[in-house]
């Protein structure tokens, strides 16, 4: 029997979950296909959500009515604000999650939303005239108007430990196969990436007494804008230990046995998340590396030693683990491993994350060369929303670099492709100062409401916050302060460096908990203007129609490479041209001048 849906999402990870929930919120008849129902929403690597840059994505997902942040609040066992002293735009709420609780929360949500979840392995797509009409599962066919594919590490996945290589997407799980043949037919470039995990340790075998304790923040913080609606479970501490000379000696002695160094791995791993082998070999002058000892859950006895991912054989893992303080008699519950998988060069995608040469197939998550739960969730959101808009025959939605990290993410991916698993950093955002974690709701609200992603409850929470900020603003405007022989308002003081936020706050009669946000709205308002100008510039670019240029070889001043690229991509206007890889502002200028030339010649 075949099933017919509006939207079918393949893959039940962080991307797939957000995509299918977005489709549901937009009123579509949706289905989720996954290899193993019980593993839907699984955190397959570290037990944490958020981080600098990543939290920004999680909050944007939340602001569009997504579920990642709420699930984090409901399963988070430690919350901390990072970068407290570096400014509000780079501050990030990071949460340790109870892994089991997290996936149970996600699964409960899917159930509550009555989403059809099928356990199946999709091995092919049926396609005609560049339009996919069915996903072919091993059990049955799933017909739909649009599809979102999220393969994670399962596309041609291989698990590597020491000299051992076997197929699989996660340890002890089978890989997904067959789709590579489909992509082959589509003439898409595939690449190979690698990531790794550390060995997991049994809690009862670790000597916590000798480890440095790292508690969460005293102040309760939330990932979701719904705040205290989702109560946190019991809060616990993390611990810190470090590698030592002996650890390093063991690893150096056995380095040839590592899958990473034996030539077994061809995929490129992330530089910001190197294996312990890499850390020791590349930074040989350092004689110690920190390890964050993170509990995987309240009930679980699994402990995640963050910072020592490896692909060394099991016996070496055991040896070096036990050389570390506190781990002297630690038992390994699951060995560390590297996983290699296929990804599709994201330059094959539109900014809606739809494959350029297929009308209704969207890709999200690691298949696009990214890493991280938040990066996956954000893409799931973009893909899910656009797939739904396509089904509804509505105009696409593309988040912009100027107002969201989601925009930075899809723009970076589709323009530049990836050379290593892509992770979000705040330094990737040119408009960082206006893209704060606390104003993600404001940045996404209009789009969210417009597309029907935001329910009444969220809207009310949002409007209440806006009201509170407005009250602060009024207070700031009406509070007058004598300043030498001048009268200034408290509002004026927000931009001055000789007054701290606390100083300004002290001048007001009454404030509410949104004061900090109001203060920084004013303090950074100059950057908002700059952002607006940039958006206007983009609209200008859009107005420059490139349809009149038939052959870029005629354009004097462009390099041969750029000419070739433009001839191949045939951008509609300057804005699209600006998105072509390798197009510099100088090249855009040349194009603009060329258009003027054409114009001058035509009108004469």
């Amino acid at each position: 029997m075949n099933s017919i849906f509006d939207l079918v999402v393949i893959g039940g990870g962080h991307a797939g979950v957000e995509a299918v929930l977005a489709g549901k919120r937009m009123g579509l008849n949706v289905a989720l296909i996954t290899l193993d129902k019980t593993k839907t929403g699984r955190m397959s690597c570290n037990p944490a959500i958020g981080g600098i840059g990543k939290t920004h994505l999680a909050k944007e997902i939340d602001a569009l009515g997504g579920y990642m942040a709420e699930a984090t609040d409901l399963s988070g066992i430690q919350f901390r604000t990072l970068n407290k002293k570096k400014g509000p735009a780079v501050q990030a709420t990071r949460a340790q999650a109870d892994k089991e609780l997290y996936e149970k929360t996600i699964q409960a949500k899917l159930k509550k939303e009555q989403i059809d979840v099928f356990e199946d392995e999709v091995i092919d797509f049926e396609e005609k005239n560049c339009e996919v009409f069915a996903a072919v599962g091993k059990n049955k066919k799933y017909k739909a108007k649009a599809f979102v594919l999220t393969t994670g590490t399962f596309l041609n996945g291989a698990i590597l430990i020491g000299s051992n290589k076997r197929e699989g997407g996660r340890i002890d799980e089978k890989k997904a196969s067959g789709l590579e043949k489909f992509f082959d037919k589509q003439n898409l470039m595939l690449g190979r990436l690698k990531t790794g995990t550390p060995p997991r340790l049994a809690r009862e075998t670790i000597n916590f007494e000798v480890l440095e304790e790292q508690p969460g923040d005293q102040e309760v913080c939330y990932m979701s804008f719904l705040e205290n609606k989702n109560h946190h479970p019991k809060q616990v501490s993390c611990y810190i230990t470090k590698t030592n000379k002996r650890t390093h000696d063991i690893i150096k002695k056995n380095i040839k046995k590592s899958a990473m160094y034996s030539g077994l791995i061809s995929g490129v791993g992330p530089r910001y998340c190197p294996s312990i082998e890499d850390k020791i070999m590349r930074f040989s002058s350092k004689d110690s590396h920190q390890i964050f000892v993170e509990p995987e859950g309240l009930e679980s006895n699994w402990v995640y030693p963050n910072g020592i991912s490896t692909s060394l054989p099991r016996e070496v893992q055991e040896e070096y683990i036990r050389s570390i303080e506190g781990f002297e008699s630690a038992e390994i519950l699951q060995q560390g491993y590297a996983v290699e998988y296929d990804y599709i060069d994201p330059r094959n995608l539109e900014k809606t994350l739809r494959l350029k040469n297929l009308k209704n197939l969207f890709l999200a998550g690691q298949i696009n060369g990214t890493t991280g739960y938040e990066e996956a969730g954000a893409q799931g959101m973009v893909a899910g929303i656009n797939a739904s808009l396509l089904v509804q025959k509505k105009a696409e939605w593309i988040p912009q670099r100027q107002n969201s990290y989601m925009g930075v993410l899809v723009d970076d991916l589709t323009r530049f492709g990836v050379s290593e698993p892509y992770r979000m950093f705040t330094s990737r955002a040119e408009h960082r100062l206006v893209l704060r974690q606390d104003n993600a709701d404001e940045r996404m609200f209009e789009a969210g409401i417009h597309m029907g992603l935001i329910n009444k409850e969220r809207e009310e929470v949002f409007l209440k916050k806006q009201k509170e900020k407005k009250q602060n603003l009024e207070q700031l405007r009406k509070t007058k302060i004598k300043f030498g022989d001048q009268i200034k308002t408290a509002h004026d003081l927000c931009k001055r460096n000789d007054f701290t936020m606390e100083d300004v706050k002290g001048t007001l009669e009454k404030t509410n908990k949104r004061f900090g946000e109001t203060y920084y709205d004013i303090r950074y308002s100059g950057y908002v203007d700059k952002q607006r100008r940039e958006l206007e510039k983009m609209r200008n670019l859009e107005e420059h129609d490139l349809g009149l240029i038939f052959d870029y070889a005629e354009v004097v001043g462009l390099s041969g490479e750029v000419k070739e690229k433009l001839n191949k991509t045939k951008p509609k206007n300057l804005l699209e041209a600006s998105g072509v890889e390798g197009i510099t502002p100088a090249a855009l200028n040349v194009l603009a001048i060329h258009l003027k030339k054409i114009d001058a010649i035509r009108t004469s």
Partner: protein
Amino acid sequence: MVGKGLDPIFAQGSAPGQSAIAVVRLSGKLPDSLYDELKIYEDERSFFLREINFGDFADSCLVLNFPAPGSYTGESMLEIHSHGNQLIVAEIFRWLEERGLREAEPGEFSKRAFLNNKISLVQAEGVSLGIEAETKDQLVALDSFRSGVLSKKIENVMSQLNGVLVELEAQLDFSDEEDVIDTKSGAIQDSLSCVLVELADLLKNYGPFEKNSLKKRVVLVGRPNVGKSSIFNSLLNEDVAIVSQEAGTTRDIVRKVLPLSGFEVEVEDTAGLRPETNDAIEKSGMVLTVKAAESADFLIYVTDDPEEIVPKEFRDRSFLVFNKCDLNPAPSSFSGLSVSAKTGEGIGVLLEKLKSLATSSSGQKLISERTHKKLEKAMKILSKEAGGADFFEMTAQNIRDANQELNEIYGELDNEKILDQIFNNFCIGK
């Protein structure tokens, strides 16, 4: 047959005034009838002697034909070489207007050359800067901009800025990493100050290229009645300043531009300086003299006493001139130049001297106003005081903004490069 290009235009290509020949250039879709009348085939690249009849009279002209696209503008072009009389040129203009041509806007020939890919924008800019350059150092500056001396200096500033940015970004994106040690805002501010010093140096050494602002100012100074005004008049070859036997005749500053074969120098005559006066007007005249002398590019110190010691505030920048050598010649030990404003002796030498002083380099190299503005803007952004609690992210933003300004002069900022450097410098990853 008809010419190729935009609407037909003409302009005089030679300098106006009397000369042996005058050149009028034509470009664009030149009318059929014009070629017919001149009995020239549009495609025939050659020159022709033609008697052009202007109605009341005719002139024998040389007509050069440059078929498109092998011409300066890339359009069909003709050049009419007539006798160099402005009246004949005016007749040619009228004659052309009657045939549907219009006089070109300034720069229109170059613009068409650019539109037809005959020259690039940079070349066009270079051409106009080159034509407008008034002094030798302007040409040298143009050269230093093109040769990349400046780009290296700017690149150096940018790479230093990027160094600070790498440090900052590591603090922002990787503060939870063990290898990134907390940096104090003071240390960042210190490294930034070093870059600011370099940028300030750059601004000091490279001035904006502005027409006129670079005209050198020469001020005549000296005691009263030594003949400053007489020399002034001789230099200009006209009686501009009032001259009399009476000491202190000149009260105000008299200015006049002196053209020196292609270069211009502004010469200023001033009130003579003497301590022993009670005349209020003369006194205020002397104040003006001191002010003018202070801001002058160089001074001509005039004396009629070979023994006189030049006051030390003028000594360094003064060229010493001994006047009235017709009355009593200067002793051979005199180090300056002997002239006589009355007989004109030595004035030619003085003019040569002025020319060499006017065209000598001021030490300050020149860059286009646009480039200078970008440098200034970068400097301004970086000088902004950053806040307290938000020092790090604000400073990072300022550096990015400043870099963007500098980038618009040469090159492009790349986030990926910043990250690359972070990964090369720190061991990141828990």
